[in-house]
């Protein structure tokens, strides 16, 4: 009886279904105060004064400013440039300046109206172009947070021998993660002085690291606990370190528990977004459409502080050339500073931006060389033995071809290309129809040597009363972590799924298994859980015990715990010797393995309103092994729907560097009505170093809809739009411009 490969029900499903799960706003803490944040109303400048209205009952409030911070005024992440509270300098709209807490939530908000901040405003830098031109230096002397260069072969030679050279420029903008639960955090100080926070999060140990610096306390005096979390999508990767720092400072100063829970109107404009990007391609091809050279230039908008921009750019850079073999490649990339709220982690993490560009560029190449884009992809895609832009030789688990061929066949792509071309010639039809294709790869786990630096630990424990618990800091954020871990541990140990539990992520009890990001939870942390379970199994085997019945577990508990309440089997990540990566030259094995996906979008455009209606999305995705097929399919459907939003609807409107449509009324994500029917096929090309062959699935489905839908819209409307989202307004404008040229 095996668990892996079975669609077991979610461990936390019944609690969530019955409304029993406690999100942070559901937790009542005796004597708790409500914290609120005073934020900057300018995008760039200095704070001259902060005036508190006289006569207002300030004695009822706890106030915290930068001066109160006992340790460093810093949100510790990669660089140390972002303050927890703006001190004198304001770098972006909605930057936190001051914190207030009051027992009554409405009164806490009310107080914000009675504080006046005087600024001296400076001319801001709001666009990537102005930042690159160093209209003002916001970060070091050139505004560049990070740059990368990948070089393979000799691109000059590649272009010299080209039959065709095709150039294109592609653009994408911000996207909001739109988790259903806003950011929220509670904090209190234990009698022994331990600063404790509990709340909505993806990465307990990121918060732990940040709080250590803010308070200047030893690691064991900081405790971070995850509460039930209503979605993350990257939006709760780094931002919770900020709100946790705020809640903890207020609690520490108030000597009472404090809770900060944002409402949507605060969360959306103030927290991180997907990085906007401009990607330029210049491609050399021979007469058969074989790639000879790719010269790619990527610019991303990091916002006001470095946050995770360097790693977002890294992943974007490593995916920029697409899943295609090309002998000569150059990718140049940089992420720059602007006076806008920092952009950050979002499902896909830089890859949806650059994959949109390379995949739509395939359509441009197809038009230029007059070879259809399907044939172009077939001629160039990665196979086992292919070499990537970083020189990585793909020795196994390359499902690009299977994913592509299945999707093309199942969707009737080739037939529809012809049918729709003829439909579109009929002026009497009320719609134009289009079909579009994309093929992507997505590296699972941290980039390059990231997993080595993380050196993650995870484990399996048995308590004296015979409970088996997975120990990991990987959070359940709706994606199925708990269920998947239990399945992997159950099979490795040889016990039924129901016997395994998962300890709640709490830094007091679980080891640092790294952040819950980068499609790494199954492949990397799941692999550690498997090894920990095997270690326990081996320890039992030495004693001649195999777990067959519940009484065997009781025996095991006695045997392994002895006189202790719990026995933990903790293992640490070990880099496979054959994976080699050089951070300095960006050469080598960028990722242990890649997952692959192809998608065909079948849509029509209303000739009266230019609204796009997707009739069907067909996709096949190679994820190595679906540990839980239903959950994996759910990830694919959900990620694809989020990609549909990115492609068609989701448009953050910025004015003077601030998002002005920061509520769900006007930030348009797809409803069930806007989400098309999907035909999902899971392809399993096992990865020998993943648990049971598994690779990552979390981010992969986010990459495919943008380019496929753009290709289909361009096909249908007879235009060439190279920017997302494909709003009806943009389609109309392109049609008018195209007709103007004819």
């Amino acid at each position, binding site marked *: 009886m095996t668990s892996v490969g079975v669609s077991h029900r979610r461990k936390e499903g019944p609690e969530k279904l019955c409304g029993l799960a406690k999100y942070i706003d559901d937790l009542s803490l005796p004597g708790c105060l409500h914290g609120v944040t005073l934020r900057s109303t300018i995008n760039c400048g200095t704070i001259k004064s902060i005036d508190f209205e006289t006569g207002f009952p300030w004695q009822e409030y706890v106030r915290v400013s930068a001066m109160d911070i006992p340790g460093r005024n810093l949100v510790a992440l990669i660089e140390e440039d972002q303050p927890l509270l703006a001190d004198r300098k304001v770098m972006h709209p909605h930057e936190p300046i001051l914190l207030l807490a009051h027992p*009554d*939530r*409405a*009164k806490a*908000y*009310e107080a914000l109206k009675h504080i006046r901040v005087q600024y001296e405003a400076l001319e801001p830098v709001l666009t990537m172009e102005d930042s690159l031109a160093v209209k003002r230096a916001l970060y070091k002397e050139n505004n560049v947070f990070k740059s990368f260069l990948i070089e393979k072969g000799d691109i000059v030679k590649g272009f010299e021998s080209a039959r065709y050279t095709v150039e294109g420029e592609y653009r994408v903008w911000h996207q909001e993660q739109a988790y259903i639960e806003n950011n929220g955090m509670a904090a209190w100080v234990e009698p022994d002085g331990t600063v404790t926070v509990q709340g909505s999060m993806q990465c307990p140990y990121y918060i732990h690291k940040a709080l250590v610096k803010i308070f200047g306390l030893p690691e064991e005096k900081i405790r971070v606990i995850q509460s039930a979390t209503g979605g993350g999508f990257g939006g709760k990767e780094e931002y919770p370190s900020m709100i946790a720092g705020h809640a903890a400072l207020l609690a520490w100063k108030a000597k009472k528990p404090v809770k900060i829970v944002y*409402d949507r*109107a605060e969360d959306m404009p103030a927290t991180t977004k997907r990085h906007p990007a401009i990607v330029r391609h210049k491609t050399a091809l021979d007469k058969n459409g074989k790639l000879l050279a790719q010269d790619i230039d990527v610019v991303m908008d990091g916002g006001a502080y470095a946050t995770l921009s360097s790693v977002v750019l890294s992943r974007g850079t490593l995916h920029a050339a697409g899943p295609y073999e090309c002998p000569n490649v150059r990718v140049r990339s940089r992420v720059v500073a602007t006076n806008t709220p920092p952009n950050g982690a979002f499902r896909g993490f830089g890859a949806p931006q650059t994959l949109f560009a390379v995949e739509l560029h395939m359509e441009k190449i197809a038009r230029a060389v007059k070879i259809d884009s399907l044939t172009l992809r077939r001629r160039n895609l990665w196979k086992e033995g292919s070499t990537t832009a970083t020189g990585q030789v793909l020795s196994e688990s390359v499902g690009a071809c299977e994913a592509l061929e299945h999707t093309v066949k199942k969707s009737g792509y080739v037939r529809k290309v012809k049918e729709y071309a003829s439909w579109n010639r009929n002026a009497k039809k*009320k719609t134009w129809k289009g079909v579009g294709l994309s093929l992507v790869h997505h590296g699972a786990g941290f980039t390059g040597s990231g997993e080595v630096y993380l050196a993650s630990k995870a484990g399996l424990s048995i308590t004296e009363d015979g409970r088996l618990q997975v120990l990991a800091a990987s959070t359940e954020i709706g994606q199925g972590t708990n269920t998947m871990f239990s399945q992997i541990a159950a099979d490795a140990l040889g016990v039924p799924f129901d016997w395994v539990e998962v300890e709640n992520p709490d830094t007091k009890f679980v080891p640092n298994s790294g952040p819950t990001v980068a499609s790494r939870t199954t492949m990397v942390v799941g692999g550690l859980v498997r090894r920990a379970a095997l270690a326990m199994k081996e320890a039992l085997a030495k004693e001649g015990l195999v777990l067959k019945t519940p009484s065997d577990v009781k025996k095991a508990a006695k045997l392994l715990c002895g006189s202790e309440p719990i026995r933990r089997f903790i293992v640490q990540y070990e880099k496979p010797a054959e994976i080699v990566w050089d951070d300095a030259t960006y050469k080598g094995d960028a990722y242990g393995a890649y997952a692959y996906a192809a998608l065909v979008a079948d849509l029509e455009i209303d*000739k*009266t*309103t*230019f*609204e796009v209606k997707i009739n069907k999305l067909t996709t096949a995705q190679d994820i190595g092994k679906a540990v839980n097929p239903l959950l994996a399919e759910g990830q694919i459907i959900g990620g694809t729907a989020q990609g549909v939003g990115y492609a068609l*609807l989701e448009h953050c*409107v910025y004015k003077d560097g601030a998002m*002005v*449509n920061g509520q*769900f*009324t*006007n930030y*348009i994500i*797809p*409803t*069930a*009505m*806007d989400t098309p029917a999907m035909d999902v096929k899971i392809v399993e090309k096992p990865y020998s170093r993943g648990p049971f062959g598994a690779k990552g699935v979390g981010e992969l489905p986010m990459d495919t809809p943008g380019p496929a839908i753009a290709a289909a819209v361009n096909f249908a409307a007879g235009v060439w739009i190279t920017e997302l989202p494909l709003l*009806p*307004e943009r389609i*109309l*404008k392109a049609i008018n411009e195209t007709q103007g040229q004819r």
Partner: protein
Amino acid sequence: MRGAPETMAVLRPKSGAEAVKLYGQQTKAVPLAGGTDFMVLWNLGLLNGRTILDLSGVRDWRKIAAARTGVLVGSLATHAEIGRHPTVRAEFPLLVSACATIGAAQIQNRGTLGGNIANASPAGDTFPSLLVYEAVVRTVSPRGKRKLPISEVFAGVKRTTLGPGELIEAVELPFLDKRPSRRLFRKVGTRLAQAISKTVAAGILRLGKGGVVEDFRFALGSMAPTAVRLTEAESAVVGFKLTPAVVDEACRRLERSVSPIDDIRSTREYRLEVSRNILRSFLEGNQ
């Protein structure tokens, strides 16, 4: 949630007469009908410290009554109730279609026609239909009762011509003399549900002998500070046959009645062109 209920005083009239009396005494009170717009303001804390006139106890104003000359829709009838009413369904299908596009089921179950009108959003989805049906709004205030054509109710963005202490009691929908040959309701929103209109259109057209247009009424929402009838375009059509030249002229005149803007939901260019397309396909008979 920034609403602080303890800072609000709530008045709970049990009848229309009592509501008028209380509102007359406290004209700054905020009337609460279905609450679908009210709760947005509540959530942002914008109603803290205000007096609320809760109309939920005024049962008389919830009725929908069919009479010989038309239907009288109580101001507190919900969009769902209007959409279900057999006479409204038979005689005022454009209003039924409009009610079915407001928010989604939950909003339609709470939101009221009177609340929708009093809120006076430029994007109010029922307004083009009400304009086409030439609805009459019945109001009541301490100064007495009034009847206003719907076209005279809206004064601007979120502003009405209602005076202090004046409440909407009901909306009269007069039956059309003759059945229209064509009718149209079309909402172009930001997505397929839970959407605010970029443009919203309602129209009826009746052809007489020899294809001459006897009646043509067309109204648009989200295209000006208030929903508007396209009187200029209408006059280019009524009394004429629908020749290409007449259709072109009507489409050309559309712009004279509207003043669309670029905002966070759409652009002037898009609103104009799509509204024109909708009008054109309606007049050409191929919507």
